[in-house]
């Protein structure tokens, strides 16, 4: 049976904090990429901003989100979540990023499914999609909170997914 889903690399914040996590030298041998990200932030509610190949940011985005008490949509570039410091201790967000056809010559996209965790009434959940103007293979992916820092035990794992 072919191995279609393979862990490429993983990183965990073990020091006090980190401003971002970045996967570099990503091989172009898979069809799709997936990142599973468990994160907590040193400040308030934040999103994770994606940068591809060092400098390519989001060119357009659509996000549906729930706050715990209301729902809405917008075009914000953030999509992944990092649980804020005000949340229940030791809780972390869960975010999945899926990059289809990451090694092709068409512009790149990502689908994001994210939720924060806390024992309270307000916790964000997001479904987002984002487009990047990038016609070459994705070789690096940076995830950064748009405010604050990732705290200890924040973990990101990159998987490669093959067609067969």
């Amino acid at each position: 049976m072919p191995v279609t889903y393979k862990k490429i690399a993983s990183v965990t914040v073990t020091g006090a904090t980190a401003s971002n996590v970045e996967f570099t030298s990503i091989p172009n041998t898979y069809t799709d990429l997936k990142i599973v990200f468990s994160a907590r932030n040193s400040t308030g509610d934040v999103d994770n901003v994606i940068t591809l190949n060092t400098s390519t940011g989001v060119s357009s985005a659509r996000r549906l989100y729930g706050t715990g008490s209301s729902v809405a949509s917008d075009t914000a570039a953030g999509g992944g979540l990092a649980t804020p410091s005000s949340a229940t201790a030791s809780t972390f967000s869960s975010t999945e990023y899926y990059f289809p056809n990451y090694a092709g010559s068409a512009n790149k996209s990502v689908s994001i499914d994210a939720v924060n965790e806390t024992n309270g009434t307000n916790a964000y959940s997001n479904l987002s999609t984002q487009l990047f103007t990038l016609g070459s293979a994705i070789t690096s992916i940076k995830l950064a909170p748009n405010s604050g820092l990732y705290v200890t035990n924040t973990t990101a794992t990159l998987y490669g997914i093959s067609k067969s």
Partner: protein
Amino acid sequence: MTTKLVVDCSTGVVEEVELTEEELAQREADAIAFEAAEKERKAEEALRAAKKAELLAKLGITEDDAKLLLS
């Protein structure tokens, strides 16, 4: 000292790297822009909630009643 974690996928080696002046400045700018966008988004949310409450009061029904009507 602000650092980032860089993983080289070809070797699996994780390196903790100090941010450059340029990266620090970018972080600062991103945080300011995010704060402004969040303020705007939360103001819109509050306005929407106030309008909803006003409409429910005008109709003399509760939110649950409205949900029932739309179900």
